[in-house]
């Protein structure tokens, strides 16, 4: 039986360089089950690189990443096939995750307000709708650890609020969630604010003045 204190994701001393440019210089991050963590930082601070290293897409040059349970990863730019419809994407990923059907995917799209576009090719969708599909694919298999790279880009306000409802539900179920963002408003939503500075993660204090927007 798992408990909320269990570690779901642990990264230790993660290093990553692109040529001579050292992006990550010993980043450490620990996320427990049911915990929602924001990784913040300036543009180019290495947030997406860190997430890719956590997801295993880009292995670190040095360091260790441990993920306990199923992983869901939502890339910053939607990674979709332009000729396929949203429904076909759900089928494709249901096959990838070895799920018996697409019910969960349909439910997710409905919650995000994307069900109208089920039969629309991705190539004909708006940026926000593509992002909904992109996100639904990462959540389709109810992952234990969820890595989201600026997942609400292009969302309208209503979808943005639905997104947070969805995150809250997953969190309540015990999922460990890491959200990459360069906006630090709504800090109170997060259990932990991790700031990426000079390739390392340091805890960021809660600044009430940053809470510009409240749902």
């Amino acid at each position: 039986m798992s408990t909320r204190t269990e570690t779901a994701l642990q990264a230790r001393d993660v290093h990553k360089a692109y040529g001579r440019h050292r992006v990550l210089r010993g980043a450490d991050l620990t996320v427990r089950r049911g915990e929602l963590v924001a990784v913040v930082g300036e543009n180019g601070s290495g947030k997406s690189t860190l997430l890719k290293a956590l997801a295993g897409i880009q292995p670190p040059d040095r360091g260790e990443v441990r993920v306990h349970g199923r992983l869901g990863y939502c890339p910053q730019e939607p990674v979709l096939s332009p000729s396929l419809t949203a429904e076909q994407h759900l089928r494709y990923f249901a096959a990838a995750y070895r799920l018996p059907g697409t019910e969960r995917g349909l439910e997710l799209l409905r919650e995000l307000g994307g069900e109208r576009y089920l039969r629309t090719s991705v190539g004909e969708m708006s940026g926000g709708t593509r992002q909904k599909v992109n996100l639904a694919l990462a959540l389709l298999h109810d992952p234990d650890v969820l890595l989201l790279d600026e997942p609400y880009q292009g969302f309208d306000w209503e979808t943005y609020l639905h997104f947070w409802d969805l995150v809250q539900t997953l969190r309540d179920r015990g999922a460990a969630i890491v959200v990459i963002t360069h906006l630090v408003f709504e800090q109170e939503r997060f259990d932990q604010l991790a700031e990426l500075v000079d390739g390392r993660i340091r805890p960021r204090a809660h600044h009430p003045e940053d809470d510009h927007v409240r749902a």
Partner: protein
Amino acid sequence: MSAPDTTPAPGYGQFPTALRFSLRNQVRNRMAALLLVGFVPVWFVAMRAMAAGEDKPLRFRLFATGETLVVDAADLTLITAGLNALTMITGFAVFDAVRRTLVFDRRLVFAGYRQSRLVGAKSLSIALVSAAVATYTAVVLLAYWRPGPAGWSAILAGFTVMALTYGAFGLLLGVLVKNDLEGFFLIIMGGLLDTFLQNPLGNPLANEPVLQWLPSFGPTQFAVAGAFDRSALWGHLALGLLWAAGFTAAGLLVFRLRTRRRRGR
């Protein structure tokens, strides 16, 4: 990101799902469809018109028998034109499809798709599309020349192997080159050089042994022998298939490397 193998039986089999969507992805390439419908007939007309100025019959050497055939330049050029059109259409269609979906395929593998099933489905879809394009080209050829059932069957076989070879070449380039321009250039120039060097009308040295080392050599020899000599050079057709298999193996190897899961943990 993948679920363990102990999860319930999948509702959607990975291989049929990947095959279905790979086919759809290639079939929906409008540019390739336009090339197929518009370019093939126009290319036959243009190449036939170019060869029409030749009064003398052409001498074409069959390397397998050592025999030299004396053939109608326009008819021989139609075979070359068909082979050349196929290099461009299948090469371009597969290159474009593979390139557009490479990152997506990688995401699928990260989500738990078996690479072997994705690779198998992709290969089969390329083979099916290539065979369909070759059949269409061979049917269009009948509007300009009627070589008889045996001759046409040989041309169809040569076209199919050629389409498979350049479909596989498109796969290799799609996973290998860094930008579209490089890929298009290599497909167009490679196809033109390869096919026209085999034709004595375009290249007076077309009987030189060095041409045996080009991908279109086998299919050209098989199609010409079948169409003009009623002989079947199976070894040459197999040679073309070897090229196709070689390109496919190299392409799939690179695809496998580029879509593999990297566990840095």
